[in-house]
């Protein structure tokens, strides 16, 4: 199914957000997930289903001042 991750269309097969992170080879402890503009807590990642057309932001800390 087609979702938008960090502004880019991606074809993913995952059922939940936790599975999506696994599919993208991302450590759930190292990223913060925003799903359709709503922050999803780490503990809740396996309870949120990914649907076609969803907008997902995956962020982390980078160097800054």
């Amino acid at each position, binding site marked *: 199914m087609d979702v938008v*991750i*960090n*502004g880019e269309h991606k074809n993913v097969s995952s059922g939940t957000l936790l599975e999506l992170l696994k599919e*993208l*080879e*991302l450590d759930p402890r*190292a*990223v*913060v997930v*925003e799903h359709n503009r709503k*922050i999803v*807590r*780490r503990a809740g990642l396996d309870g949120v289903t990914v649907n076609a057309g969803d907008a997902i*932001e*995956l*962020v*982390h*800390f*980078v*160097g*800054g*001042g």
Partner: protein
Amino acid sequence: MQETPSNSFISLAEGDTITTAVETIRDEPLTIGGRTFQSRLMVGTGKYPDMESMVRAIEASGAEVVTVAVRRVNLDRAKENSVLHYLDPKHVFLLANTAGCYTAEDAVRYARLAREAGFNDFVKLEVIGDEETLLPDVQGLLEATRILVKEGFKVLAYTNEDLVTALRLEDAGCAAVMPLASPIGSGLGLLNPFSVRTIKRRLHVPVIVDAGVGTASDACVTMEQGVDGILMNTAIAAAQDPVTMAHAMRLATIAGRAAFLAGRMPRRDVAMPSSPTKGMLD
């Protein structure tokens, strides 16, 4: 191999006794939003030539508070991209910023994402109003502050050196107010010592000067105004030798603080001899 001057300089510093202002002079540690810090110097993590010099520079600076930015994960190489791959959050206090945000709404969104990373509820709030000067949008800043304070954030607000804005930010519940020395990344030093002093005199929350420092003397002069601390990034990261500059900044921050506490002599327009005028030969 011969040791480089910068290395010997740094190793000299490791053994000395002036690691913090608190150890050598009668000073209180810096407390912001209930957290106490020994170092009055805070540093950023951006713009370093490489991650190794960033890590070594932070160490040399003696800073405990280290700022980071919230950005999208690069899906191809997420690990290398993350600053946490190089910094241990057990050893530094991560202060997330909202750099790059131009509206209160965006800044609030970034702050919430940062808090969700799970380290603390502090945020260095930036709401930028102008792309060229990166000067703050004070209206957006106040709006975002009110929202974030209500949500339990400890807000450290980056602002200009305007007293009335600083007072409003304090009223809005900021844990610290961060007036600029000069525009972000400009290296112009403290352009308006009078205004920064006035802000410090009138506010009750800590005043941390953020942005604009170019070299060690700038940091020293800034601390001499009596402010509680100083935050810098480019002055260290863009120096020819960031590690040695970080060391210089650490000393300058301590020196400026000590000079402030010592209380400087009054300025005079005429000379006054330091040696006795009596007892001169005929």
